[in-house]
């Protein structure tokens, strides 16, 4: 009976070979499919156990996000310095709730899985060192961020401040208030995370919304920069005579559009109209320019771009349908369906400051390997490639903005700062006359060599209610940010 025994032996061999072949299929051929399956929590655990890279501010090397060793299975705990202040920038990194902000946008670098870190990962494997994540250096200037955030929170404002370098597009500050503490979301116990998460979620002021880039608002009079640019490009000059009528009837309707407070415009030139923010001239400009020219001008400022990332995705700003003369009139003063993100609003000033060319806003200065060697430096890039207005016209508009600043009230005025600015008081809501308006302020300084452009929005008038204007509420915050950058003037 040795023959059948031998055959059974062969059968045993075949069975083991079958197992080996199948295991090869599972562990080698299909391995990547299984490893990257979203239901495979191992990858997640492995990622959390890896030493995540730091998020650093460029100007003074201040660490905004780092890891601290923890004595649990995740090995490291993500911690944020001044978490609430920088939350719109850093975002959060939570085991149960995923990530947001830069933590998400630069995740590949921070967790070390970026292809550019591949060689280092290999050497880590050979040397047996635990793999680490790379670091992200931001363009953020902590002084500006702090000045803007502190003032916003002191005043108890809901809103956002964005500051950037006009010449490079480097974002110097990105504030959104009220904010939240990402440290709580990065806690390692599910309960702590849950408490922080529900508290933020249920807060009617929505602290986890990054207002600077994820929310759009009617820009109000700050949009007149766009209308003015289009008008200048269409051949008007600062001294072109404009109407000083207190109101104008919207074509095809019985509705009238009036200046702020229903007063006649104090001047009759284009320059005066901007300086005093008269609505009627700009509404009629928009009507005269027409949909195409206005849209074109707006596009060159970056309005309407849907794929902008800084590297977080920026919500799309837009003009709305502009389907009637009336709509054009209202849109010309930044009302109706015109909606901009605070970042886009900041780009308006920055573009004027940069001689008419919009620079692509960016938050990441450079990406560093775990050993702090540079992997990539980001260089300035143009946003649209087409100037929104010629440098001559930009200089004209700049001077008009300087004049505007001169007429603007509010705290923090400092002549030494040489600010060029434009305020806005944007109506919103279904009952716009009885809803406190959004207060806007956008500007840059110093006017002859712009170092910083800033945009401030304080939602629903801040603490001034219906009487709020861009100048009385938002201006002081913008000026504080500028002052922080320019060093007290």
């Amino acid at each position, binding site marked *: *009976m040795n023959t059948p*025994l031998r055959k059974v032996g062969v059968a045993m061999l075949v069975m*083991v070979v079958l197992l080996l072949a*199948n*295991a090869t299929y599972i*562990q080698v051929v299909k391995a990547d499919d299984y*490893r990257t*399956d979203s239901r495979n929590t*191992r990858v997640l655990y492995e990622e959390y156990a890896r030493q995540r890279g730091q998020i650093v501010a460029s100007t003074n090397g201040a660490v905004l996000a780092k890891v601290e060793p923890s004595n649990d*299975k995740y090995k490291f705990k993500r911690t944020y310095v001044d978490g609430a202040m920088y939350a719109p920038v850093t975002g959060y990194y939570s085991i149960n709730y995923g990530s947001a902000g830069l933590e998400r946008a630069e995740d590949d670098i921070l967790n070390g899985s970026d292809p550019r870190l591949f060689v280092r990962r290999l050497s880590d494997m050979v040397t047996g060192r635990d793999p680490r994540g790379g670091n992200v250096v931001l363009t953020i200037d902590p002084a500006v961020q702090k000045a803007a955030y502190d003032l916003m929170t002191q005043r108890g404002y809901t809103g956002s401040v964005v500051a950037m370098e006009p010449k490079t597009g480097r974002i110097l500050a990105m504030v959104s208030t009220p904010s939240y503490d990402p440290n709580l979301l990065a806690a390692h116990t599910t309960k702590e995370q849950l408490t922080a998460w529900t508290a933020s979620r249920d807060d009617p002021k929505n602290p986890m919304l990054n207002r600077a880039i994820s929310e759009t608002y009617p820009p109000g009079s700050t949009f007149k920069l766009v209308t003015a640019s289009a008008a200048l490009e269409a051949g008007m000059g600062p001294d072109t005579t404009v109407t000083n009528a207190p109101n104008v009837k919207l074509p095809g309707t019985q509705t009238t559009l009036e200046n702020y407070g229903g007063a006649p415009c104090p001047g009759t030139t284009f320059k005066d109209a901007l300086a005093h923010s008269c609505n009627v001239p700009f509404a009629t400009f928009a009507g005269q320019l027409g949909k195409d020219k206005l849209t074109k001008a707006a596009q060159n400022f970056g309005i309407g771009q849907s794929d902008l990332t800084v590297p977080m995705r920026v919500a799309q700003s837009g003009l709305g349908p502009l389907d009637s003369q009336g709509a054009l009139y209202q849109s010309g003063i930044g009302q109706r369906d015109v909606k901009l993100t605070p970042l886009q609003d900041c780009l308006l000033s920055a573009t004027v400051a940069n001689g008419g060319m919009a620079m692509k806003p960016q938050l990441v200065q450079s990406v560093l390997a775990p050993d702090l060697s540079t992997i990539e430096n980001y260089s300035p890039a143009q946003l649209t490639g087409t100037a929104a207005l010629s440098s001559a016209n930009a200089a004209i508009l700049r001077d008009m903005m300087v004049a505007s600043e001169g007429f603007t009230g509010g705290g923090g005025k400092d002549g030494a700062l040489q600010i060029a600015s434009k305020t806005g008081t944007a109506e919103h809501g279904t009952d716009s006359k009885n809803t406190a308006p959004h207060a806007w302020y956008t500007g840059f300084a110093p006017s002859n060599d712009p170092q910083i452009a800033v945009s401030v929005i304080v939602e629903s008038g801040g603490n001034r209610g219906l009487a709020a204007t861009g100048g009385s509420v938002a201006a002081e915050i913008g000026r504080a940010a500028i002052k922080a950058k320019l060093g007290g003037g």
Partner: protein
Amino acid sequence: MGQPVAAPVSAQYTTNPPRELPTRRGTELLLLAFAVFIVTIALVLVEANQEQELTSSILWLGLSYLGVLTVAHLAVRRWAPYADPVILPCVALLNGIGLVMIHRIDLALAERAVQAGKDYSPDVTKQVLFTVVSLVLFVVVLIVVNDHRTLTRYGYIAGLIGIFALALPALLPSSVSEVNGAKVWIKLPFFSIQPGEFAKILLMIFFASFLVSKRDLFMVAGKKIVGVELPRARDLGPILISAAVCLGILVFEKDLGTSLLFFSIILVMLYVATERVIWVALGLSFFVVGCVIAYNLFDHVQNRVANWLDPMDPVVYGRRGGSFQIAQGLFGLGTGGMGGTGLGAGRPDIVPEANTDFITAAIGEELGFIGLAAVLMLYLILAMRGMRGALAVRDTFGKLLGGGLAFAMVMQIFVVVGGVTKLIPETGITAPFLSKGGSSLLANYILVALLLRISDAARKPAARPKPSVPQAPLAEAHTVMVQRPETPLVAPPPPTPALGQPPLGQPPLGQPPLDPSQGGTA
């Protein structure tokens, strides 16, 4: 007296000095030490990767494992000196890897328990205890079964007990016999028994002895249809009964794995005994028909098949009794990839039952394909050495039993690993020596003891030459034989010629006493 055939052999033994066959026990001890070395290194890796304190206690653990194994080795040296030297080290390595893995999963589960604020008592202490008990049992079996042929005497009683043990959980109420849906346990106050593990061996003993005694019956050809000789209808009885019993396990104990394992073992033993493939074909067709019926009748069978066909399907994955376990096992295997995450550096505890049915998935995750393949090769070597013993042993019972035991080992690992790696539907049986569980460990050590016994019988010299006491008279015998040529086969005269005839019953000189039971032909 029926012994003249042996005369030339005896002549050879008398003229040549007896050749001493190497027992290879030294090799065994060396391999055992090597196995312990690997296991100790594995433990060190686990402790290092889990950031446990590396203390000298690991060394002591390794040494005590070596100590326990040395006792087993000494027992083999004493009671089965010619046994195969590779089998025991393979077992020691597998058992050791199993202990390390169980300990490693203990660490992970303990950490979870701490986080959840619960208590956790490690499984590995129990398993270590079972290992020691198993080795004791192993030695006992080696001593008690000093000749495997004696087992034939207990064939029927073994079969009876085996069937009873197998059927017992099905008869008991679910509260004492059901764990995770499989009704194969007997839960006692302090520990649980899986009687099926022991029934496996008992039934193999029964089948081997039954087939040896009734072998001719199965060889009788029945009608010839289309060139194939079918067995007679009445001879189908036993195979029908066994098929029915196995399907009964499938249905009443909800244990596909055991069912598949038993039936394949029976078929293979029948095939080996009769050398007729038709038995395998017939048995398989019975089984397939039975499975199809079971599939249509029972939800749990349908579930298992659905889990097998597409474990990644979200519906199958998410539902109760769905493919969560097998999918997580596959994720683990995939994450491990070719080289594995490293011992103690993976997350095998995510897979439910990672220390029992899915321990091979844990090994595949942390040691990678390479580690899993190595473990599979260990099983193959173990079974092939057993098969070698079966081939070389001289009696039919030994061949059948040895072949069956060896095949059972590979079949079981095929069902386990095949289920985990989605080659066949997942069935839920333990991996021999690796998985947590006392019954499995005890039973498999008994199995190995029997394999060693058979391989010892195979390699043992046919008989020991008699001590050289008659050697001196033999020299004088020639002269005596010349003097008395009429009685050539009668014993030589005693040293003192005065005493005359040798005592009656003394075997003729130069012929070793032959054990009549060794007359069986291969």
